[in-house]
């Protein structure tokens, strides 16, 4: 008797692959895709569109401030809504979605996952963002939004804003779950690369802040819809901006910068050609930065004046303490640089510019908190908080984050679009963005010191002519920033159209996203290298070098 264990022929035939359906192309490929790279690109492109809109609003407000004697350039009743849109649009329609876009595309690759967790939810979040962003812009155009006079428009704004917050929260849940649950064998939490780690920290912080902001917005909706000017907290539409502006004031604004630290931490070791020094400590420092940037407790207008010390005490502590993790990271990156050989490529230039601006912003935020030390004693309001010093701090943090993420876009372009940016042009853009940030935010800082309020309230103030001069410099900075952003978009489009292929690992990267093709296939990896540290590709490269030696 002969016994065989060959599989029956029928089984073999059944397991043969069937003809694959033709891959969708063009718009159908975007509309029907749950691929996290496609979804990430959708977030990125839409957020850049919102950057252009928010930037135009910011330039209009800045131009109006050249002459403080009256409102000349935009319609008088549009100045407030434009100012509010400048902040809300820049923060929640550009910066956070841009971060989510880069994270959605890169984080699964960096942790070695074949997909993002809940790809359909991630896709739904992206489309909800597009819808709510459109409604939000529409509400501003019909004189809704904060400072708007059309009650229905204001309600549309609040509804769209809540929808936007839900979309952002869902996207963060997908990213965080990917980092926690979809890591392959060997990728322990301590080995998670810094960009993915920073996004896990950011997701946690935003999943604390976004529901609080959504609840505040829902209460504002009820207040305005049913209470007119006599709602729970009084004031109706007029107080809307004050209720939500804490989300881009200190300390909550620092949460925007958490992924920026991850980008810098990913770029520095690659362009110094060495291992990141004290990776776990860097993770701890990013976590500490995240913990200190939870700002949901510092909501103005919801605390009794009798307990002002309860808010201002922690506010002062946080404003100073948050400098420490960034200084610690700066030290680690300096150590990393000393250990290796520096290659001044464009992503490192972006990283350096972003880190410098972030440190200046954090320092300005700490200075802002000095005055409340006195309010603990006498109860007076801070003279700096509420001036354009405050908005300048937010501008420094926001623009530093934008520069870091722009660097991330350049660095990860091979994985995002399968092409690289032109190196020379990208270096110029990095310097232009740095110059624009300094020109935009520094005069605003000084004008705040001289008493210019953050809100564009026209009318006589002290040192009007000096402040107007500073505002002109700030406007020039805005124009320079716009040129830098336009240059980056042009480079992005040019790179996307280029026929030059970058190769799988053009930077000699350290982390897993460089272990696959550029652009990666739908399921990301054909195979993964051994993961024995936070830099598996660096390990593999050094093992093979040692072997050949």
């Amino acid at each position, binding site marked *: *008797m*002969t*016994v*065989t*264990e*060959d*599989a029956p022929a029928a089984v073999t035939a059944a397991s043969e692959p069937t003809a694959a359906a033709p891959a969708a192309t063009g718009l159908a490929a975007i509309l029907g895709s749950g691929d996290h790279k496609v979804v990430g690109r959708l977030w990125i492109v839409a957020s850049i569109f919102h950057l252009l809109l928010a930037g135009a609003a910011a330039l209009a407000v800045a131009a109006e401030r050249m002459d403080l004697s009256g409102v000349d350039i935009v319609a008088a009743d549009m100045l407030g809504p434009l100012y509010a849109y400048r902040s809300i649009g820049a923060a929640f329609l550009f910066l956070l979605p841009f971060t989510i876009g880069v994270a959605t595309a890169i984080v699964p690759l960096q942790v070695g996952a074949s997909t993002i*967790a*809940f790809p359909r939810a991630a896709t739904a979040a992206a489309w909800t963002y597009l819808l709510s962003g459109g409604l939000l812009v529409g509400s501003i155009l019909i004189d809704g939004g904060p400072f708007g006079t059309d009650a229905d428009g204001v309600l549309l704004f609040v509804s769209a804003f809540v929808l936007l917050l839900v979309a952002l*929260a869902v996207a*963060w*849940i*997908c990213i*965080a*779950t990917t980092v*926690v*649950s*979809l890591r*392959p*064998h060997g990728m322990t939490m301590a080995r998670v690369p810094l960009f993915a780690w920073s996004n896990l920290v950011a*997701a*946690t912080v935003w*999943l*604390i802040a*976004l*529901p*609080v902001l*959504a*609840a*505040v917005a*829902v*209460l504002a909706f*009820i*207040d305005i819809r*049913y*209470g007119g000017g*006599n*709602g*729970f*907290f009084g004031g109706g539409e007029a107080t809307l901006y004050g209720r939500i502006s804490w989300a881009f004031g200190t300390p909550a604004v620092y949460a925007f910068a958490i992924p920026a630290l991850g980008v810098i931490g990913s770029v520095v070791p690659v362009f110094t050609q060495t291992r990141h020094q004290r990776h776990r400590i860097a993770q701890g420092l990013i976590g500490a930065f995240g913990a200190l940037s939870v700002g*949901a407790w510092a909501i103005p207008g*919801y*605390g*009794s004046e009798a307990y002002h010390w309860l808010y201002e005490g922690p506010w002062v502590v946080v404003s100073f303490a948050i400098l420490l993790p960034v200084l610690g990271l700066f030290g680690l990156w300096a150590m990393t640089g000393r250990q290796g050989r520096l290659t001044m490529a464009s992503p490192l230039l972006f990283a350096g510019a972003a880190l410098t601006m972030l440190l200046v912003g954090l320092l300005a935020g700490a200075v802002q908190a000095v005055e409340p030390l006195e309010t603990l004693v006498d109860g007076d309001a801070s003279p700096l908080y509420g001036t354009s010093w405050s908005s300048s701090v937010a501008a420094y943090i926001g623009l530093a984050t934008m520069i870091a993420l722009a660097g991330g876009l350049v660095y990860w372009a091979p994985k995002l679009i399968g092409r690289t940016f032109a190196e020379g042009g990208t270096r110029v853009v990095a310097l232009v963005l740095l110059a624009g940030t300094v020109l935009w935010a520094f005069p605003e800082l000084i004008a705040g010191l001289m008493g210019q309020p953050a809100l564009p309230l026209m009318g006589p103030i002290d040192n009007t002519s000096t402040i107007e001069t500073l505002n002109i410099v700030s406007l020039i900075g805005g124009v320079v920033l716009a040129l830098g952003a336009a240059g980056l978009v042009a480079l992005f489009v040019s790179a996307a159209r280029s026929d030059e292929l970058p190769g799988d690992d053009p930077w000699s990267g350290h982390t897993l996203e460089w272990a696959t093709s550029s652009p990666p296939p739908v399921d990301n990896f054909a195979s993964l290298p051994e993961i024995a540290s936070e830099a598996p590709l660096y390990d593999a490269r050094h093992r093979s070098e040692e072997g050949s030696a």
Partner: protein
Amino acid sequence: MSAVVTTPSPLLTAPPPAPRRPRVLTVAAAFAAVASSLFVLTMLGAYLQVRGERLADGVSALPEDVVLPLTPGNMGLLTLAMSVVTVAWLSWSLRNEDRIHAYLALGLSILLGIAFINTTAYLYQQMEMPFDLTGTSGLLYAVTGAHLVMTAVGLIFLAVVGFQAFGGQLTGRDAEGMSAAALYWYVTVAVYLPVWYGIYITK
């Protein structure tokens, strides 16, 4: 006797199976539960602040003619407390592939969830309180309404994974979806404690 010819089984030469997805749904449910809780608790905080300010001004928090009955609130708490037991029973039954117990536990859990919603609706009816924004009454509806939404989401989650389990997708060691739904439900019940104390007990 002829020789036994063995060729390696494809099962032996095949690559090892991909590791089981480690608690993806549970992790996401934990994040979602924290976010939902903070949404409700922020509203509760706003309610307590307005209530405190009104009491400090010597004005009653709720309209003078409104009586906030204690019994429905307490019954709501008791109902949710019982549902914690039935949901734990449901998870245990699925892990042990005991379908009869799972059917019973899912049915009871959904019944108790609906009973809680009914209790709150009965409370609203008993109060006969207008939706008034000058006091805390509008906020009371906002807080309890937000918690009702959280409860409804938890119920739908339980029902969906429960029916998936009966379809055979979430049995034995793979009952992760039920663990996720149970986690969300436990947090929903936990959030009711400060709502119950802040609204129905302190009045």
